[in-house]
């Protein structure tokens, strides 16, 4: 079944490339990364492919490696290597300076997380060296509506160009309660949510990202009657009603999972995935270990998560969660923000060899035997 699925993706890649006329990368400025496994949007890995990157820094095609024009080959990847979209630190604090706190107003649609982004933050480069090429930041969820999220490329020094418009960031959690203003109780908070859904203009009810970390938060979220479910940030425990999300096209942001962390949270995520819910791994940089995203995936896979679901949770789903369609996927028209891993990125042994940001290549791994990488810090 999996083989058939992979063949279908291979066929789809070829069809898209041929249909768009980009199969033969014969335009000026096109470069080819050849001989790699490519992470497909469904999370499978298609081996023996080549990725074509155009001069505009976009992917212009994914073709079988043997169809690539040898004259345009920019890089022949090492055997077994896998090219992926950039990893995505979702709702962490990577690139954010100072505290961006919502909650002064209960519903604050004008708060812009983008204002807190600092493109000179050196952590952005450290993260990129670990394959994390995108960061989505948001205000601390102290109100019901906490402004908009903002997604940026991890590149220190470059002008911080925001990717996409961002999404409204909601909260139905203890963090939204404040003794200095209403609501001060959970009952009142839920009532406020019901009022807002019933009385506000439908055009204001944009499905955004909802912070509902605990089991009770998710239960009440599912009881208040959304016309379209938001993306939910949920840690949860054994009481989390994740099975109620089955068949509702739900997307949960889970984690980050740490070694020695709460096993109940990992099991909740696995239960959700088994119920057909799509997952995305939450970020946590710069406070968490630099490899926390891949570590989260490895821990979830060890706990029973399907490998393809784990790859989707690493690459395509974070982009979907924050509403940026041009990243998280390798297909014609997408940004060429790519990472070349030495092997399957779910394998903790995988190393980042090269990264591309907007088509610009940076070599990360040093050749063996050279002590030139005082990696500060790990």
């Amino acid at each position: 079944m999996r083989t058939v699925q992979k063949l279908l993706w291979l066929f789809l890649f070829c069809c898209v490339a041929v249909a768009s006329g980009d199969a033969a990368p014969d335009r000026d400025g096109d470069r080819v990364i050849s001989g790699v496994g490519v992470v497909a949007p469904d999370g499978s890995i298609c081996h023996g492919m080549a990725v074509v990157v155009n001069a505009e820094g976009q992917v212009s095609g994914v073709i079988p490696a043997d169809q690539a024009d040898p004259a345009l080959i920019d890089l022949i990847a090492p055997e077994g290597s896998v090219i992926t979209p950039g990893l995505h630190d979702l709702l962490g604090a990577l690139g954010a300076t100072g505290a961006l706190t919502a909650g002064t107003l209960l519903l604050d649609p004008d708060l812009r997380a983008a204002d807190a982004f600092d493109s000179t933050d050196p952590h952005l480069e450290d993260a990129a060296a670990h394959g994390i090429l995108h960061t989505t930041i948001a205000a601390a969820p102290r109100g019901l509506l906490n402004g908009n999220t903002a997604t940026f490329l991890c590149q220190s020094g470059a002008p911080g160009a925001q990717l996409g418009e961002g999404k409204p960031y909601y909260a139905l959690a203890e963090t939204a309660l404040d003794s200095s203003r209403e609501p001060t109780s959970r009952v009142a908070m839920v009532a406020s949510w019901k009022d807002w859904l019933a009385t506000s203009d439908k055009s204001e009810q944009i499905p955004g990202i909802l912070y509902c970390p605990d089991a009770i938060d998710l239960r009440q979220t599912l009881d208040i009657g959304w016309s379209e479910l938001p993306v939910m940030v949920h840690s949860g425990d054994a009481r989390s009603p994740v099975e109620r999300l089955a068949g509702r096209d739900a997307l949960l942001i889970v984690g980050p999972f740490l070694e020695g962390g709460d096993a109940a949270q990992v099991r909740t995520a696995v239960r959700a995935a088994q119920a057909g819910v799509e997952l995305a791994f939450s970020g946590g940089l710069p406070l968490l270990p630099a490899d926390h995203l891949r570590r989260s995936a490895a821990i979830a896979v060890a706990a029973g998560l399907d490998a393809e679901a784990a790859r989707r949770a690493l690459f395509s789903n974070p982009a979907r969660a924050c509403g940026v369609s041009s990243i998280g996927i390798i297909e014609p028209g997408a940004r060429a923000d790519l990472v070349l891993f030495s092997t399957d990125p779910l394998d903790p042994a995988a190393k980042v060899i090269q990264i591309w940001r907007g088509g610009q290549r940076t070599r990360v791994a040093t050749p063996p035997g050279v002590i030139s990488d005082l990696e500060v810090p790990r």
Partner: protein
Amino acid sequence: MIPIRFTPALFLVAMILTLSASIPTQAQLFDRATVLEGVLLPRRDGGVSDPVTIVIRRGRVTEMSADADVPLLSKKIDAKGLYATAGLLDPSSNLTLGSVSNGNAVHSAWDGFDRYDSESIRAAIASGVTRIQLQPSGPAGIVGRVSSISLSPLERGGHGVLEEEHVALCIDLDQGPSLARIRTFDKVRNAFLAAKRRREGGDDYSTDLEEYLEALAEAAKEKAKEGDEKKEKEKDDDESKKDEKKDDDGPSKPARPGRDPAADVLLQVLEQQLPVRIIARRSEDILNAIELANEFQFPFQLQGADEAYMVLDLLAEVEGLSVLLDMPQRPLIRGTAPRSSSQLIPLLEKSEIPWTVGSGGLSSSLWRAVRTISGQSGTASPLSIVNSGAGGRRGSGWLRRGSADLVLWEGNPATDGAARPNRVIIDGTVVWQRPAGTKEGSF
């Protein structure tokens, strides 16, 4: 002659003795072998064997070949497509262990092991770990002694059989800011100096005791010679007798050194009867560890060793040194962690310093740590790494006849990063398996 009325009673006793003697024989006769059919074995050369049949009898692998004799009435497990390895040994684990508030050389990690923490133990077993070296954690300095534990199930409930209580003495030089680490080093050094003085004091006591015994014997002889004369004098003068008695008190007995169990443990280290494990990550701490070992003449295992590449020349000169790498979690914040190098392992290999990998945590992360470090190594396969730490202990190393612990993997653990255990067998018993239909495993 035995009276005939005792014959039935004797017959009964004889029957009981015969039956009791035959019980072990019956147990052996009815001991059901466990047979794993269609198993694939990762080989040392990186390849995979053809499917084999593994026979486990009385808790040990007895046969491992394509044409193995399958005993009658054996319990068969269909393991087609599964890969078998020996159980993993975590040489640095703190499974179920809390931090002790006041570590010392007497403290034993086994004392803090919670055999009934089924959730943590289950997570460790589910990751393929069957045995651990439990390492105490606590304040910086001499923390306590490492214990070796098999995660076998116990009949009375819980998991964990003590294999060896005192595997090594653990010294932590890694905690705290610079000044605190200098003080820690001084504290440890002073403890060893005190132990050394105690040994010298013990030697002095032995010498003094011998001299005392000789003097005592001498005094006794003199006393015997002068016995008669003294008796006459005693009769003449009672007061002079009292004075003579005072003179006859003889030599004073030397004081025996007081009990000091912690110093006695350090003496075992100085006598090289107890191995030492020193946790040091920064170059200055590693230099302190080397200084300690040189001054007190003991070999040691260096745990952590992130900045070892900076002092590699000095490390290479230390006799009996080995390195235990682990994967502590560190944030992306600059200046908070030792400076690591991805070239550390090639450099250790070039210097012929043996190294292995431990989880340094809850053991459930051991396999991920091994795979991560195998990626840095470039040459060592994950299985060879995990087996290098196992040494020649029971049930460890590459799977072979006589192995007691066995893990069946879904996928080749040598090459597949996402491979995970399907069943874990300890002493012939399936202690954990991932049931079909669900992704969660259970005991």
